[in-house]
């Protein structure tokens, strides 16, 4: 049956697939309403159907970690008008990049079998290291309402707006007590908002799962975690890497150029 709905597909690489699971948490009303506007044409985790038609919007979850996945990414790019990196693993490699700073991760986990070809794994990278990415849905997991907002903008021919202010703004808006005032530490001051700041409201630090705002003050980050958050210098540095090992690297490279 022909229709004018945007054709949307979901694909997955190295990830927990939790961002895809978020799509099942809308309830019937919101989800069926969404399907009034888009047609999901391929989604391996939830459907066996596949399409040979061009895809309007491809949402890709997961990091690029091995050459074997390169062609699959290139094929998706060829098939899709718009590519969205869906979740932080695809956007910056998120938590997967934690291993990038460890030279021995393969032998630690697989010992003498580490050289077996199917266990091949390079540094975890964003999918944008292989293909052009048009838009990002940040977060670990994504905020499923932010995803709706982005899709809605695209369907209306508008540019989606992703906040470029830190999570602190949302905590102030929510009247959440600052983690530093509660004797804790927090990454909210460099982390891109848009999640609604649930973690500080639930009594835990922002871990930076949505990646950094543009031009974060990375020098001050470890310093504040150490001086105001009471973390040792070692922990302050390792904390800053938690979801942002790749972003931290990039920022260090930029500061070297300066």
């Amino acid at each position, binding site marked *: 049956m022909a229709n004018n709905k945007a054709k949307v597909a979901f694909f*997955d*690489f*190295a*990830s*927990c*697939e*939790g*961002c*895809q*699971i*978020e799509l*099942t*948490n*809308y*309830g*019937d009303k919101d*989800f*069926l309403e969404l*399907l009034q506007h888009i047609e*999901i044409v391929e989604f*391996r*985790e*939830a*459907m*066996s*159907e596949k399409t040979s038609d061009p895809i309007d919007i491809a949402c890709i979850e997961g990091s690029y*970690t*091995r050459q074997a*996945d390169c062609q699959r990414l290139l094929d998706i790019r060829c098939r899709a008008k718009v590519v969205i990196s869906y979740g932080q693993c695809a956007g910056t490699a998120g*938590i*997967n990049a*934690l*291993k990038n700073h*460890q030279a*021995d*991760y*393969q032998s*630690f*986990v*697989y*010992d*003498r*079998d580490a050289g*077996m070809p*199917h*266990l091949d*794994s390079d540094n975890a990278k964003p999918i944008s290291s292989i293909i052009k990415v048009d838009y990002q849905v940040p977060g*670990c*997991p994504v905020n499923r309402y932010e995803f709706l907002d982005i899709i809605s903008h695209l369907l209306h021919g508008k540019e989606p707006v992703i906040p470029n202010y830190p999570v602190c703004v949302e905590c102030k808006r929510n009247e959440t007590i600052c983690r530093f005032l509660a004797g804790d530490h927090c990454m909210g001051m460099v982390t891109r908002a848009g999640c609604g700041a*649930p*973690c500080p*409201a*639930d*009594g*835990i630090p922002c*871990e930076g799962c949505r990646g950094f705002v543009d031009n974060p003050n990375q020098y001050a980050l470890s310093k504040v975690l150490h001086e105001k958050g009471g973390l040792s210098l070692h*922990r302050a540095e*390792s*904390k800053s890497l*938690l979801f942002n090992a790749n972003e931290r690297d990039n920022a260090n490279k930029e500061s070297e150029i300066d």
Partner: protein
Amino acid sequence: MNNTKIDVNIDIKHLTRVEGHGNIIVNVSNGKIEKCQWQVPESPRFFEAMVRGRHYSEVARITSRICGICSIGHTLASVKATEAALGIIVSEQTSKLRQLLKHAENFDSNVLHVYILAAPDLLGAKSVFPLIQTHTDIIRRALNLKRLAHEWGSAIAGRTTHPTTVVPGGFSKLPDIQALKELKQKLTAAIPDLAATVETILSITDQIPDFNRPTEYISLSNDNNYAIYDGHIQSILSDGYKQRYPVADYLSITNEYVSQWSTAKYCKNKLDSYMVGALARLNNNYAQLKPQAKLAAEKFNLSSLCTNPYMNTIAQVVELVNDVYTSLELLDDIISHGIHHEILVEPEKYGQGIASVEVPRGILFHDYQYTEDGLCSGGNFVIPTNQNHANIQYDFEKLLPELLEQNKTEAEIELALEMLVRAYDPCISCSAHYLKVKFV
């Protein structure tokens, strides 16, 4: 017609409607089986290495990211193992709330699997999407039950995908009593939908293949309830013989090894393979199901001991009923005691800790070592799906000759093998395997 001379070539790369990536490869030439394999090409993610050097407050937030479907279970196994390593004993209130949370996850995942991943095969569809037109009420019910599970888990853990409030020593934020009363109302209101779920699945059970292969079934078990949050390791064989082991002995039960036929690690205990998951739980702990869940099981003629792995999906339906009725009792108990503000229990020591919970797909183990500064020096996880891989392979090897004997077509064989893998509800992203524990 006799097709014993049949050629079959099945090469399914990235099987659909399962979590993670798995392949099915079958080659039958002139009736002779040349290849019959369940393969796992999932990209490894190295969580065991990633937790090294991490403070105990951060470890569960990393390991919850092993799996998006079982992230509550990974969080709970992680904080329990960390607490064991740190000598932390949590309050009764914490323990009850975590049990309530564990049931939320089990319900959440079982709804997802039964309705979204498995039911389309039984209804002759390729996914739920065409069913929106043909079976609107069923899909609406599925989405609403899934949403209920999400609200249920979020009421306690902040959110269901990568929980926020569950931390070593207790909860960083406790639910208020009003939220728990509302949750009780929602669960009570869902009872008609539960009954409808049983009836819907009952109406399509004739599509479930009749295939039996006795194996060993392993799950948690305890003397107080249908174990999903704590207990001993328990094994039951098809003759009903049960044996219990301490959780700390998990390495000598799981015995992971590398197979020459498959890239996935295999596990074995008493036999060549064993099964974990809802059917293993039901086989071990049937007597402890709530009466309403037993009634549901009886409708499906399901009792202990069942040796048909396809019935794992039905065991999940029975658990849906059990999760709700168990949680209503837990909620009454918690509400009657009131919610008391409690500060987090502080560490008493730093050492090794091992813990286990039942995640929807089966028994899960987390194991950590901590140094004096509260930093993790090594971690090890044994994941349910890895424990099932060998059992799936041996099921394939018994099932394929039977299907050939029954003169099934290639398409029918393909569907039967796909359905078998789906029945195990594999969660392959979880496959953060280990070979050897090696703490540094």
